[in-house]
Structure formats: C-alpha cells, structure tokens
C-alpha cells in the first residue's frame, strides 16, 4: 500500500438544504447534532452542552457537569469566520496532549448540476455539500521549533 504523503483528511456530506441554512445549523445547533456518549463528549453520559461562539476568535466549548461541579472545556478556537461559505477552527480532541491541535476547515457549497447529484430544496435553492478537511500540520509547533531548529510551517 502506498504511504499517505499528507497529514490531511477530507470528508464530505450532502444535505437537502441550501448552504447558508446548513452553515447556520452547523454552527448554531451544534449541541443538537453532535453525537452523544463518552466517545464523543467529555461529559460522557451527562449530555452537557456544546457550542460555537459564532465569530472570529470565538471558542468551541463543551460544558459538562462533574462531581466537583460544572466545568467547561475549550475544544478549539475559530481562526477563519466567513459565513455562509466557510469557517475554520483549531480542534483539540479529548485525548490530545496539552499543546496539540488540528485544524478543521468546514466549507459549505451548493451542489452543482451534472456532478452525480441533482438536488433542489423545497424553496428552489440548491442543496449543500459540506466539505470538512482536517489537518494535523500544526500539531505541536513548539515541538517543531525544538527539534528542527526553528523550521516549521
């Protein structure tokens, strides 16, 4: 098998609503669609709450209850905010070490005709395709500076 020469993963999904509405649902109803359970939320069985602060520099936060009281974990910060086309945020998984993060870019585009899917919403607008690209390129930049004599992206 050929080795991957990239640190990026791209996944996509097509939804039957227009890109602008999809953008709003993605960023304002995050808690409603984000999977629940210990694998996906720090709060585990306690559902807690997840939300984006919808602005450049805004945080992606999970609030959950713990024996010592309510706690909040910042999963990342928004580094690009261009509604309704795209936004980008730094993402830290539950198992990431301090200082580790990945970049997640989410873009929303209308599904083009003639490319396999022809999809029009009830309102006559074209459906949206959400493309999500995750890159680990910036994982531990401090590590890069230490090991490679200042050479990092």
């Amino acid at each position, binding site marked *: 098998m050929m080795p991957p*020469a990239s640190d990026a*993963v791209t*996944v996509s999904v097509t939804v039957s609503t227009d890109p602008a509405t999809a953008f709003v649902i*993605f960023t304002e*109803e995050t808690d409603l*669609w984000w999977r629940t359970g210990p694998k996906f939320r720090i709060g585990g069985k306690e559902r807690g709450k997840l939300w984006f602060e919808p602005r450049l520099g805004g945080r992606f936060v999970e609030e959950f209850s713990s024996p010592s009281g309510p706690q909040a974990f910042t999963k990342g910060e928004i580094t690009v905010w261009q509604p309704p086309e795209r936004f980008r945020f730094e993402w830290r998984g539950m198992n990431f070490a301090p200082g580790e993060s990945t970049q997640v870019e989410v873009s929303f585009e209308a599904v083009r005709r003639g490319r396999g899917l022809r999809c029009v919403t009830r309102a006559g607008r074209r459906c949206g395709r959400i493309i999500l690209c995750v890159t680990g390129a910036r994982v*531990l930049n401090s590590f890069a500076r230490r*090991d*490679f004599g200042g050479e990092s992206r």
Partner: protein
Amino acid sequence: MAKAELNTTLVALADRNRRAVVDLLKEQPRRAGEIASALSMTPPALSRHLRVLRRSGLIDEQGVEQDARVRIYRLRKEPFDQLREWLGGVESFWTGELAAFRDHVERSTGRRRGPGKR
C-alpha cells in the same frame, strides 16, 4: 513514544517541499541528485529537507559500494503505517459527526416543512 513519533511525522510533512520529496520516493528509492533535479531544488535546500525527513524517521539513506559519495534515499514503512492509522481514526470520527449532522438537518428540515408537506 508512539505519539511523539506521530507528531514528528506530522511536523515533517507540514512542509510541501518535503511532501514532494516523499511523493517522489514513493515511486522508488532515489539519489539526492535525482530528487533535486526532479523538484528543481538547490542541493543545499534539498539537503536541509532530507535532514529533517531523516531525523524524523521518514526516510533512511544507504551508501553505494561503487561510489562512497553517493547516497540512496528511501521511505521507511513504520512512520507511514502509524500516520495511516491516525488519519483513519480522524476520518472515521469526522465522517460520523458529518453523518450525525446530515441526519439532524434531515429531521429539522422535515419538521420545518411540517407534517404532510414532504
């Protein structure tokens, strides 16, 4: 330890010139001169990138009996196996989240249309 190696791999691959070197070495092991020529890179620049790739364990070098000055560079399998495993986990996680998002969109747009209007 494994995590540290993965981080080193990711940092090494963050540079597009180094990714280009890896792409070339995917085809076959090559001499430095071949790589520099294929990528239109100066020998000092290539040497810097090869050093990073070597120190991060992505490639190794081997001498040639006939000419001690010539070094052959090749990819090492282990770091790429580890990278593939990490990428697989990332892909699986976000594919699941996007599927959950799609399901939520379908449910909520259905609700917005109201019963009997689908």
